[in-house]
């Protein structure tokens, strides 16, 4: 395997140093390293971060290969600086058996752009009635630790309690899509002043907050671990803050789009802005940013949700929920958190790499940039900027809500265990060949 020296990278946005990569491992960090017999990557002006980890990605395979595949989704992830993504379970068939999670995991390994940690369904078929074989998925080659019915809420309190209890046997976590189903029947957008005017059925904040409040109390009662997916309201932040202050083992994520966009966009009736949970108010956005800076919200997770164009090129009510986000996540975090002074780059590395890997119990990712650690590294140019064009996406789908918006930053290179998956801002396609032969 080729050895590399990354020259003059600003490590976590601080000191400038060279990084030597040998055999997939960070072999040396220092100034003016010897560059004989290595490939030199010039990183002047670039920031080095640990490879990003997404706890919430929809890769769509198996079942919706018209929207995304493991291959295209992991290419998209690599382009966004990710070295590990957690693939959500709402595929067809649902990832509720060891067979399906192993298939997804294996596809990730074969393509080699980005590691894939499958998320297992909590209930059979996401139907919310019967626990899936969580233990079998945990014991499979995919070593599943994160379980979620994402897209649907485990709304039955007893089932949620049992799931929380059961995963304690293998240090699993239940990642809850917090949405009280009866309060959100037919819901289309945030319930607020605008939903009433637009005549779109509201998705009230209380439908999220009531489930989070119940679940943190359940987690406390049974002494288990809860993760809250895509938290979106100020009230949810307050509940999580309260739960953490009581010592409840709860973690929470926020999506890039909830850090930037607001429900005002629904007034266009363009379903590119239709997402679940919905875009909320500017006040919620402010609360989410503060909570992420404080650490009350632990991580950023993309909820990358690819859809074919026909599922968005229609009237609002007929459109699918969701937006893609892997390739814009770091830029949106820079724009909303770093450029605003809320978070430094070490903080970004914590929220987008170390903590998500820790929640997913993946030991080989989210590691510090230090000698002896796996060489999962992203080189990022914070001074670049671009106007987002849907046709430029690496993902198979084009449903980006940032169309026409200028965002800062650019992923210049991504290394997965010492092998570049992205160089000069372009996905390296021979990666898979190398991986298979390695």
């Amino acid at each position, binding site marked *: 395997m080729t050895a590399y020296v990354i020259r003059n990278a600003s490590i976590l946005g601080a000191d400038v140093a060279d990084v030597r990569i040998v055999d997939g491992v960070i072999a040396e960090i220092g100034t003016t390293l010897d560059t004989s017999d290595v490939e030199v990557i010039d990183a002047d002006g670039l920031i080095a971060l640990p490879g990003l980890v997404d706890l919430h990605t929809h890769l769509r395979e198996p079942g919706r290969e018209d929207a995304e595949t493991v291959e295209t989704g992991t290419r998209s992830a690599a382009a966004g600086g990710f070295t590990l993504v957690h693939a959500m379970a709402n595929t067809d068939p649902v990832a509720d058996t060891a067979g399906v999670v192993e298939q997804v995991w294996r596809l990730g390994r074969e393509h080699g752009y980005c590691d894939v940690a499958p998320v297992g369904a909590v209930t059979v078929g996401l139907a919310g009635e019967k626990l899936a074989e969580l233990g079998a998925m945990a014991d499979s080659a995919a070593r599943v630790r994160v379980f979620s019915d994402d897209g649907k809420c485990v709304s039955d309190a007893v089932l949620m309690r049992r799931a929380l209890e059961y995963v304690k046997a293998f240090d699993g976590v239940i990642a809850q899509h917090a949405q009280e189903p009866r309060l959100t029947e037919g819901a*289309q957008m945030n*319930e*607020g*002043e*605008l*939903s*009433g*005017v*637009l*005549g*779109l059925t*509201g998705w*009230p904040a209380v439908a999220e907050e009531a489930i989070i409040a119940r679940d943190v109390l359940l987690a406390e009662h049974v002494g288990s671990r809860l993760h809250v997916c895509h938290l979106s309201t100020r009230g949810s932040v307050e509940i999580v803050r309260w739960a953490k202050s009581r010592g409840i083992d709860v973690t929470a994520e926020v999506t890039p789009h909830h850090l930037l966009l607001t429900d005002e966009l629904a007034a*266009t*009736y*363009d379903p590119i802005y239709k997402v679940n949970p919905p875009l909320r108010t500017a006040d919620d956005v402010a609360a989410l940013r503060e909570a992420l800076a404080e650490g009350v919200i632990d991580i950023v997770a993309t909820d990358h949700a690819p859809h074919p164009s*026909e599922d968005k*090129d*229609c*009237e*609002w*009510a*007929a459109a699918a929920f969701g937006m893609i986000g892997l390739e814009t996540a770091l830029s949106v975090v820079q724009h909303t958190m770093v450029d605003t002074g809320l978070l430094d780059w070490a903080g970004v590395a914590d929220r987008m790499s170390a903590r998500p890997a820790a929640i997913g119990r993946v030991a080989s990712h989210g590691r510090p940039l230090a000698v002896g650690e796996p060489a999962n590294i992203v080189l990022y140019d914070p001074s670049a900027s671009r106007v987002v064009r849907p046709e430029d996406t690496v993902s198979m789908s084009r449903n980006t809500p940032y169309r026409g918006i200028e965002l800062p930053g650019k992923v210049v290179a991504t290394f997965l265990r010492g092998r570049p998956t992205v160089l000069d801002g372009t996905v390296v396609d021979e990666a898979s060949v190398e991986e298979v032969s390695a």
Partner: protein
Amino acid sequence: MRHLLSTGDLSRDDAVLLLDTAEEMLSVAQRPIKKLPTLRGQTVVNLFFEDSTRTRISFEAAAKRLSADVINFAAKGSSVSKGESLKDTALTLQAMGADAVVIRHGASGAPARLARAGWIDSAILNAGDGSHEHPTQALLDAFTMRRHLAPSGDRSLEGRRVAIVGDVLHSRVARSNALLLATLGAEVTLVAPPTLMPYGVESWPVETSYDLDTVLAKSDAVMMLRVQTERMNAAFFPSAREYSRRYGLDSRRMAKLPEHAIVMHPGPMNRGMEITADVADSVRSVIVEQVTNGVAVRMAALYLLLSGARDAATTSPATTADLTEGQA
């Protein structure tokens, strides 16, 4: 004015121009030959994804009286029911050369999508979208109010008090009326049980009340909205009987209205639910007249959108002479 999507898009001048033009159109309707050559050679498509015989017929009559060619495209029995998308339907209509598309759709915002998504260049008239808006209904309501409450002088509805009663939450008629009447200077009070009041209604340019009796005494017009009995099953109110006792208009309640006040209903009525038969058929009721006025208002809307060069903000109302000029 390129499209008519929401009454919230209309300035006061736009709205007054539409109403004044409708007066001219109404005079046409009272002639023995109810037809003008104005839109000859233009094609108006009635694209109805929901059943609505009365609105569709009203638009059809309006377009025909202006000599437009009318194509009725009912989603049922067309390729839409086989799963054709709104986009493909729009592309088809574009290819056929539709000059105006009158759309009724169950999804809020579907007309706005047609107008903005780049699928079709036609003028788009919203004939009711989900629980969003129904602008021509509000215009015909304002037109009817003006004829009764401001028959002469400046014909302004400034300071006139209008109660809109019933299922405001799901009502596109209420939304369009609230916005239009506020633009015209009328004082609107929405009356509904709290469960049928939209979330965030405090930000609307209206008053609200849960008590119909106190509002009636100071109303110049009262508009009763249709209440679907299926709302009962969704716990919006306990029973049809309780609803009609608290929010229905019967003759006892009607007696509280001032002498000059009128009773309106956009139809179709649930007699015995939100309005009793004797009220609906009383001398105060202008419900049938609303239907007549609907054709005149829709003629005005089609005329102003399709006669191109006329800029709604600056042009004076059409006269019958204008409308007939160029007649060969």
